[in-house]
Each structure stands twice: as C-alpha cells, then as structure tokens.
C-alpha cells in the first residue's frame, strides 16, 4: 500500500520551523524522510515519521497538519533507475505533483517519494513493473 505523509503549515517567521521540529524531538518521533516547499507566505513541511499518529497529536496544537497518501519507491543504485520509474508513470498518464528522496538506515537503499494524483493506481502500475514500494508497516522498520 501507499504510505501516509504529514504536511505541516509552517509560518514564514523566525523560530517557527525550530518549534515544529522541537515538538517532534520532545515526543521521541524519528523523521524518516522530509522536504520543505517554501512559498512567499509560508512553508509546507512534508514528513514521513516513525509514528505519524503521535506526530499529528503533538503538532495539531501548534499548526495545521494534513495527511496525504504518497508512494515511496525503491530505486536501484544505477544510472537510469529514476528515469525508468518516471517512464512507467508517464506511460500510465500519472502526473507527479512533487517528489523527494531519502535513504533508509536499515538497507541503505535509496527511496523516492512521489506525490501523484492517484496513489493507488501508481502503486499498482509500479509493482506490476517490478518496482518495490514501501507500506506503512515498512516505515516503522526501516
């Protein structure tokens, strides 16, 4: 299955990102993967954590937290690996809104997180082409 990503509204003000990250640290939550989109008025912090439920609880007091389903696809460590995955999605007419990459500590594997219009369809087509994807249980392990 696809995995759950948290999106946090971070005001474009001194100390706001620090406060958000501190709340996670204090709650003992490990950040598995992250990216920040900065707009003129605010930032969007996207997180995949060791405990999304708890993360939402500690952040809800401070800011807005939304959840989105994203795909985390394992990349082979070779030239052309990302190209191959993108080609599969492109052929299936699946549009990508954004993506970011992270490395898992367990197997040192490279993963790319895709935010797409239809996560379930993307998951299905990638798996059908032999591309491994993570599910929520994997996130706790890696």
């Amino acid at each position, binding site marked *: 299955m696809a995995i759950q*990503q948290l*999106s946090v*509204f971070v*005001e474009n003000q001194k100390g706001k990102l620090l406060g958000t990250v501190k709340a996670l640290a204090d709650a003992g939550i490990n950040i598995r993967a992250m990216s920040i*989109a900065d*707009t*003129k*008025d*605010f930032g*969007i912090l*996207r997180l995949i954590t060791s405990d999304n439920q708890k993360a939402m609880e500690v952040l809800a007091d401070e*800011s*807005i*937290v*939304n959840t*989105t389903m994203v795909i985390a696809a394992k990349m082979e460590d070779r030239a052309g690996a990302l190209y191959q995955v993108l080609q599969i999605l492109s052929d299936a007419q699946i549009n990508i*809104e*954004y993506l970011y990459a992270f490395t898992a500590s367990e197997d040192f594997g490279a993963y790319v997180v895709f*935010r797409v219009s239809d996560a379930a369809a993307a998951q299905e087509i990638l798996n059908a082409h032999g591309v491994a994807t993570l599910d929520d249980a994997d996130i706790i392990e890696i």
Partner: protein
Amino acid sequence: MGNYYQPEIETASREEILAIQNEKIVKQVKHVYDNVKYYRDLMDAKGVKPEDIQSVDDIKKLPFLTKADLREAYPYGLLGTDLKNCVRIHSTSGTTGKRVVAFYTQHDVDLWNDCCARAIVAADGSSEDVCQVAYGYGLFTGGFGLHGGSEKVGCLTLPMSSGNTDRQIQFMMDLGATILCCTPSYAAYIGETLAEKGYKPSDNKLKAGIFGAEPWTEEMRHSIEESLGIKAYDIYGLTETSGPGVAFECCAQSGMHINEDHFYAEIIDPDTGEVLPEGSKGELVFTSLDKEAFPLLRYRTRDICVLTREKCACGRTHVKMSKPMGRSDDMMIIRGVNVFPSQIETVLLNEGYTPNYQIIVDRVNNSDTIDINVEISPDQFSDIVGENQAKERKLESAMRTMLGIGPKVHLVAPKSIVRSEGKAVRVIDKRKLHD
C-alpha cells in the same frame, strides 16, 4: 485677497449668508416633505412638520440620514422629483451589494458646476488656463464635476480621465496644461513619472493642482508641490451631496471653504447625535439647501472634522472645514475607493473561509497598498504549493470584484492573527494620514 467666481456670494457678510440659508431651507424642507416619502416618514415618526423649520437654527430638529438609509431607499426612495426632470446619475465607488445612486436635474448639475468653478478660481484659474481633468470620468463624480466647473470658468478643458500616464504627460506638455485635477496619489505618480522621463518641475507649465477624493497629508502636499512645481489645493465632496466642490481650499491652504449657500454644515457628536458648538471636533453633517433631484437633509458623512469661522486671508466668508481627521465608522478610503471591513468578511464567508482576517493598509511611493491575511482551516490547506496559491488568487479575484480594488491575499496559520482581549484587530493602517 484673490479672484472669486461669484464674489457677491463668496464674500457675503455672515448676515447675508444666513438670510440666503434661511430662505432656502424653508423651501427645501417643504420640497423634501412633499416629494420624498422616505424622509416624510422619518419626519412624521419624529413628529416634525415642515412648518417647524423656519430657519437654519431649526435644522437640528430634523432626523438624520445615514448611508444605511441610502441603501435602504435604493434606487428611487430619496428621489425628490420626477425622473423625467433628471438629466444624470452618479454613483459611489463602494460596492457593498447596493450602490448609492445620486440623481441630478439640470439645476442640480449647474449648482454643482458652480461650486467646482469656485474651487478652480480659488486655485487661480481663469479663462486663460488649460485645465487637465485626470479624475475618472463615468459614474465617479470626480471627472464630470471638475470638467463642468472648468468649462464654467472658461478654461480650455482637457477631459483626460484617469490612467494612461504617458498620454497624460504628452497632452500636459504639448498643450501646456496649467491646472491639474486628479487624486493626490495620481498627482504624485505623474510627478514621479515626469522625473523618470527626465523632466524638471520647471519644464511643465502647471501652476496649480486641485486634488481630492482620498485622504492626503501635508507631507504629501509638499512633495507633490515640489515634484510638479505647483501649488496644491484640496477639494472635498461626496456623491451623496453632489460630488467634489462641496468645499474647497483657497490660497490660504488652511482648511476648505464650504459652499454655504448650497450646503448647511453641522458638527455633531457621533454617539449622541447632538449638535456641538462651533470649533468642536465631531462628525460632519450636511443639509442641502437648494437641490431638486437628490435633496438630502442632515446626511451624516461619518467624516470627523472641525469647522472654523475665523477671517480668511482670501477674503471669502464661508465657513472652513478642516481636512477630515478620521472616520466615525470603520470605512477606509484606499486609492480613492471606500472599503468596509464587512465587505471583506462577506467575501471570506462566501468563499468558505472563517471570518478571521486582518487588513493591512500602507502607502508605498504615495500609492495605497492593501494586504489581507486570512486564517485557513485544515481542510483548506494543501500539501501542494500551487493549490494554496490558487486559493489566494481566487480570493484576490473575489475581493477585487467586491471592493473595486485589488488586494494581496496571504493565507496564514489558524490563530496567528493577534487578538487583544479576545477581539482581533481587523485593520492596521500604517499610512499615518491623521494625527
């Protein structure tokens, strides 16, 4: 001393002016009572009959009219004559659902043009002058008001309307405009553009500017006077009472003479409605004295100012009003457009937002800016940048339709707008227009 357009009236003694006013008010009240049912009902409810009004001293017995009455009576409720006698309408810029529409007979247009003509002559205008009218022409009263006054004075009148600054400058230079009429912020903009094009203030033939329709400061006056090489005169008016020219500045530049033979002014306590003694600061109230189509009695302008009867160096005897020092309601004037916070609230509710917002008004390079911070709720927040930005653009577009000016909208986090004593500060005006 200076020139006057109608010297016998403009320099009449206090007794003469009172005699004119007393004669006119009796007729005006009877005209309104006989022809305007809306106001007749208000008078009846207050137990006031036309016979009770024998002089301007009795005006305080009459009921007030407010902007709310004008909206309620829209469009024909306050019309004082048959439509077939009317020749024109004008309308306010405010777009709070119902506009205020004012009607004019030819007599009304003539008296309004006379008022504007007095303002132009007070700014040293004559038939020798070339008068560039860069107020908007249309429903807005600015363009047509000064245009009519300029023609009465006999100036060569350039009906430029607002905007297209390159063309304004071309006509100004090629035809040697000597008087410029527009909003003060546009005058400042023209001054900056002239400098950018490499013109010195002495390169133009302008000698005077008549600027109004929005609040401006003494600092702004000095900067405009310097950049254009002119003397800058203030002018006051509202669509409800005719338009610009209800009051105008003379060479003394120390307050605006109210055309008292057409408009009777009172200063009231905005909370109690009580008339305040001369020299007090309070809300300005106008009673028209000789209008046919849209004769408003005791119309509350919501502008806070002071009236003075000190002898004026220009020789005019009509009472002077100070520049408005503020408002008795929450209306803001931004780029000459009337804006109420309630309009912004309406848009937010229509678009599915909470009414938690803050308006920040500022003036950058002599032009007003308006920014609106809007708190969002979790269901409106997207993890995709473009979707959030699209929400801001959609709100901006809805605001532009409602307000008539385009604000910048910024989505902010819930509960991020500072609330003092539980009540959010809705408007932060950084323009420092008033002391």
